[in-house]
């Protein structure tokens, strides 16, 4: 019995909602996994902050061109129709609202759509990269995350306790237990694991889960 989705399964679920023809930016690390699960028959064009549209998979080992990398500094390849551009054009694509979807990780998401994902507070080296730009640029800003922290505390909260990446910016959260839209400052539950009751899900969520329309079973294949 599934008690929670793996990271790959969360990425798979997020990938199902990316429409054909979408321009998409995937954050460094876990979000990069979403590209693996693009449904067959859909064309998705990936943007990377450092100036490439329509990059493809990683090259074979030994075939890397280290002038051709993604935001995570990993070597990539190009799809037919790819293009290069400088950083100001790259962020015009982001901040000008030209991207359809951005997918990021999170430390915390608040019910009003606030996101904290760049700083764990004092004592660490702060690093923001392009996250603060992406959360205000893409038409849909999606978060993929475990539903709770490693210590078991909710990551979906009433108000973020960590430094914010952006205010009221998140559209949808795909977690290890549920799919939740943020609508008018509330967490609206769309899908949940069938093995879990709404009460059980609410118990590990730090703010009210609103039921507004059908709640569908979150069913994800083993991937």
């Amino acid at each position, binding site marked *: 019995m599934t008690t929670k989705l793996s990271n790959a399964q969360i990425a798979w679920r997020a990938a199902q909602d990316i429409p054909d023809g979408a321009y998409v930016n995937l954050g460094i690390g876990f979000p990069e996994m979403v590209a693996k699960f693009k449904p067959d028959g859909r064309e998705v064009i990936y943007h990377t902050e450092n100036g490439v549209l329509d990059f493809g998979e990683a090259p074979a080992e030994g075939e890397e061109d280290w002038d051709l*990398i993604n935001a995570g500094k990993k070597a990539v390849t190009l799809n037919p129709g790819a293009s290069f551009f400088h950083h100001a054009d790259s962020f015009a694509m982001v901040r000008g609202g030209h991207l359809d979807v951005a997918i990021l990780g999170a430390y915390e998401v608040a019910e009003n759509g606030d996101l904290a994902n760049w700083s764990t507070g004092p004592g660490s080296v702060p690093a*923001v990269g392009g996250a603060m730009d992406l959360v205000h640029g893409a038409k849909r800003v999606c978060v993929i995350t475990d539903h709770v922290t490693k210590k078991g505390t909710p990551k979906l909260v009433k108000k973020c306790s960590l430094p914010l990446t952006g*205010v009221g910016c998140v559209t949808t959260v795909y977690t290890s237990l549920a799919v939740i839209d943020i609508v008018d400052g509330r967490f609206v539950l769309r899908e949940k694991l069938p093995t879990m009751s709404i009460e059980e899900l609410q118990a590990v969520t730090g703010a009210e889960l609103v039921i507004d329309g059908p709640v569908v079973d979150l069913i994800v294949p083993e991937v």
Partner: protein
Amino acid sequence: MKKVYPGIEDALADVQDGMSVMIGGFGGSGAPIELIHSLVNRYRETGSPRNLTVINNNAGNGAIGIAAMIYAGMVKKMVCSFPRSSDPKAFTDKYLAGEIELELVPQGTLAERIRAGGAGIPAFYTPTSYGTLVAEGKPIAEFDGRKYVQERWLKADVAIIKADIADTKGNLTFNKAARNFSPLMAMAAKLTIVQARKVVPAGEIDPEHVVTPGIFVDRVVEVSDPKQEEVLLREGVKA
């Protein structure tokens, strides 16, 4: 017009103590390794240039490139968006010890500030960073019902960048994603110094293919087989 310099040291001779230096590159892609290490070598031999403010997306990786500058002790302050890397020890240790300053700038804001600097636009508004620590102390304004943060232009005394092909008039092309910040930095610095894999006579680059027009470029030096930071890191090269 004489933009082409025969040697790296001559091309860099006017980089002096206390200057702000924009350095092209995103991680190792586009990092002008030979120019950087010429400055490091001069610092090691003469103690200058020092107290530099370095503007780059990152803050060095391993022990070469910008990390070598930080290890050497030439850098007073980093202006960057992402001071992390696979081996960020050079910056992290000095930062946590309070020996280097950091101005953290969101990546798109960093690019736009540099572009604005090059385009003569002293400030602009962006939604990026509104409501975050990064916006503290900055003017906020509302346009069409949404809040925006005022950001100022960013200029520098010098830009050092890596191009693929340069012509004798300073027109540049770049290799793949290695262009990143370099065309913007070339615009925003008082003195732009370029290392190019190949220098060709004016007219040999198709004007349709010029990425950075020569008006933004002051000095060009040919480095025909440039080192790639990522390759050096993987080879375990130390400074």
